[in-house]
């Protein structure tokens, strides 16, 4: 059964949180929990979602939720799953919600270990493309050219010099049972992937783009629009990895303007035409590879 606004669980499991208005990360967490349901143990490392969800005594998760150390999201998921299994409990999901920094930089070793062990966990990376909670520092998933507080835009160096780490394919390279990419701009697609993942035994990974209005420099009402646009203009792709092969879920016949997407965000406002040409070139190269090698 496909998931839509009509069929979704009407209960709210992430409510009253203190995230900024228009927060993409909180939308991803809220939506995923509505699919997974009450019998879910959420593990959140230090990051936005733990900062906004646990303001003692205000606890905004209606299901079980716990904060882990920054590096240990996946390790704690392993422990949660093993502990509940030992107590004979089987009808639950162990899900982790880590940001891009907590996944691609600080938590990558723990994640790799959990995938290697084959633990029955779901790891969701909400990717807002920098360490937003601490004031917008560059992470491994910050895209080329983005201005952050640690990659400022100057006369000679135009923001971040490094491309976005290819986290989806790094995870897939472990031979994981299921991995997928998504964006909060296309929620039914994201929700279907969460549901699919919840029914698969073993480690699962979903990488969801979740714009941060504060860090991206967009109006708070544009979160969903920006999350749609990033997939429409080809700077992000919706794909799955399953049974050892990649599948592209959505192949836009024609990309919308990547320049419009970039120019709309203040973190890219300094980019020159040449910088944008470099970004579009690398996008086209990536898509050439995807279309040639992945199933559609």
């Amino acid at each position, binding site marked *: 059964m496909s998931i*839509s*606004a*009509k069929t*979704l669980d*009407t*209960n*709210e*499991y*992430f*409510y*009253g*949180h*203190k*995230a*900024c*208005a*228009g*927060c*993409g990360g*909180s*939308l991803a967490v*809220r*939506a995923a929990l509505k699919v997974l349901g009450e019998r879910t143990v959420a593990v959140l490392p230090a990051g936005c979602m733990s900062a906004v969800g646990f303001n*003692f*005594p*205000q*606890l*905004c*998760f*209606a*299901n*079980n*939720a716990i904060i882990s150390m920054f590096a240990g999201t996946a390790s704690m998921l392993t422990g949660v799953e093993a502990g509940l299994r030992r107590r004979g409990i089987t009808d639950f999901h162990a899900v982790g919600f880590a940001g891009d920094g907590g996944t691609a930089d600080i938590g990558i070793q723990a994640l790799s270990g959990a995938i290697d062990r084959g633990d029955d966990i779901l790891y969701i990376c909400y990717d807002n493309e920098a360490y937003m909670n601490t004031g917008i520092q560059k992470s491994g998933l910050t895209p080329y050219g983005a201005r952050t507080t640690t990659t400022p835009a100057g006369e000679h160096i135009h923001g971040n010099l490094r491309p976005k780490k290819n986290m989806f394919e790094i995870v897939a390279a472990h031979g994981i049972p299921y991995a997928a990419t998504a964006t*909060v701009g296309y*929620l039914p697609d994201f929700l279907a992937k969460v549901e699919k993942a919840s029914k698969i035994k073993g480690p699962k990974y979903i990488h969801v783009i979740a714009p941060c209005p504060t860090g991206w420099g967009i*109006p*708070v*009402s*544009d*979160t*969903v*629009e920006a999350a749609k646009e990033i997939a429409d203009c080809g700077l992000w792709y919706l794909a799955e990895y399953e049974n050892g092969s990649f599948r592209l879920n959505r192949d836009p016949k024609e990309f919308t303007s990547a320049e419009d997407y970039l120019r709309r965000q203040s973190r890219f406002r300094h980019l020159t035409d040449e910088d944008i040409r470099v970004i579009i070139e690398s996008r086209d190269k990536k898509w050439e590879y995807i279309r040639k090698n992945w199933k559609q």
Partner: protein
Amino acid sequence: MKPYIREQKQFGLDTIPEDTCFEAGYLVTVNAGWRSIRPVVAADKCIGCGQCYLYCPDGVISLQDGKAVIDYDFCKGCGICEKICRPGAIGMEAERK
């Protein structure tokens, strides 16, 4: 079902929970003061498609009798609902004291 506002307990050093755990979904403060603008639903235009409910980051919109209803205690006034609403049933109005 969703978490609701409850009494704020006063914790002293001797009453603070011993473990680092506490009851799930325990809310003591609202987020209403964050708004400068508020979404208002025109019930005659609302077709009950639920897109605003789906895309609200705070989950404050629910469908009651086929119409969108907003929980103003927790709405932060981001305006995503206004943009997502195809029939144009949601308008943003200045918050009045």
